[in-house]
């Protein structure tokens, strides 16, 4: 009997997004949440926890990371630093 693996995400305080903090095993979502509280928030590190079954996550492949992220590589004009601003122009 192998308990499923859950990935744990914690919102450390209001105004911030949930961040991945680690994983744990639990038989179901309710136990996963309780275990996550005990393992990852013993010092008030969070105000909200998400648990997601690791098997339900679809991830990009590290083998294809270059091709996968390639399309953004030649589009430097998406960054404000690409543009020349004439001397003396402010608030731009």
């Amino acid at each position, binding site marked *: *009997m*192998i*308990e499923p*693996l859950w990935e744990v995400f914690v919102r450390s305080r209001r105004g911030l997004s949930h961040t991945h903090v*680690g*994983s*744990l*095993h*639990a*038989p*179901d979502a309710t*136990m996963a949440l309780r275990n996550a509280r*005990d*393992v990852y928030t*013993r*010092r008030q590190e969070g105000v909200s926890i998400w648990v997601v079954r690791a098997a339900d996550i679809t*991830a990009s*492949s*590290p*083998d294809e990371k*270059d091709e996968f992220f390639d399309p953004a590589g030649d589009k430097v004009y998406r960054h404000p630093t690409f543009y020349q601003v004439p001397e003396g122009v402010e608030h731009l």
Partner: protein
Amino acid sequence: MLAGMDSFQATIDADGRIEPRDAMPEGYRKTLIRQIAQHAHSEIIGMQPEGNWISRAPSLRRKAILMAKVQDEAGHGLYLYAAAETLGVDRADLLDLLHSGRQKYSSIFNYPTLTWADIGAIGWLVDGAAIVNQVPLCRCSYGPYARAMVRVCKEESFHQRQGFEILHTLCNGTPAQKAMAQDALDRWWWPSLMMFGPPDSASTHSEQSMAWGIKRHSNDELRQRFVDMTVPQADVLGLKVPDEGLSYDEETGHYRFTEPDYTELYDVVKGNGPCNQQRLAHRVKAHEDGAWVREAAAAYAGKQASRREGSAA
């Protein structure tokens, strides 16, 4: 574009971090699994010598602190098992390897905690040595291990301070209490020095681990760092480090000290320490006694899932 092993080496050379699904040499993966598992095992076996004193802590305050600390050790074990699992092993299999004696844990936990002062000495010396070992691991080349160590190190500093506070209280108490503190230091000093492993000249795994960025400093460097940090703290306590050869070297700014007897380290690692059998037997019993809880939780989860399916249909 670099693929596979070229990408691995380029990442290591640039002091970058390797993440779980990246290509990595089999030796790198195996070394990490062995080291992280051994580290995780140490955390959970380390609950035993301290758990021994929970029911006999001298005050409610000390008892609450000790329970929190032992709970932290369980948490540290879990962070580390989770980090090991990202390398493609299963926690249940790692526990089997521990229970059957095929994987080790830190030999320091094979020493008994005879008095309350030992709880102070463990926090101050054993957790102190662990911090010296673990802080560089926060920069380990394997991302999940490094991230787990950041959490562990934050929590360890409370452990070390509470241990020092226990000893400081005893050292400012009655002569008998101070003698108890001295006795604890006398017994824990040498095993604490052994926590850094064999001397560099005899360390088998070090060189490759350094090249892979798993290890950042040699055993002897870390041992020296621990001595330099700890001796002045012993002075504050008014305790004597049990080393006749201890002296401060003005020129280097480091303490000279006597090396521990490494034959004792090898002997304890082999299974001949004072508590090896007791520690392992207790761990196996706790695991077996908890089987019904795991089974009940799984049965409940199964029942809930089938009910949800039934109502959805």
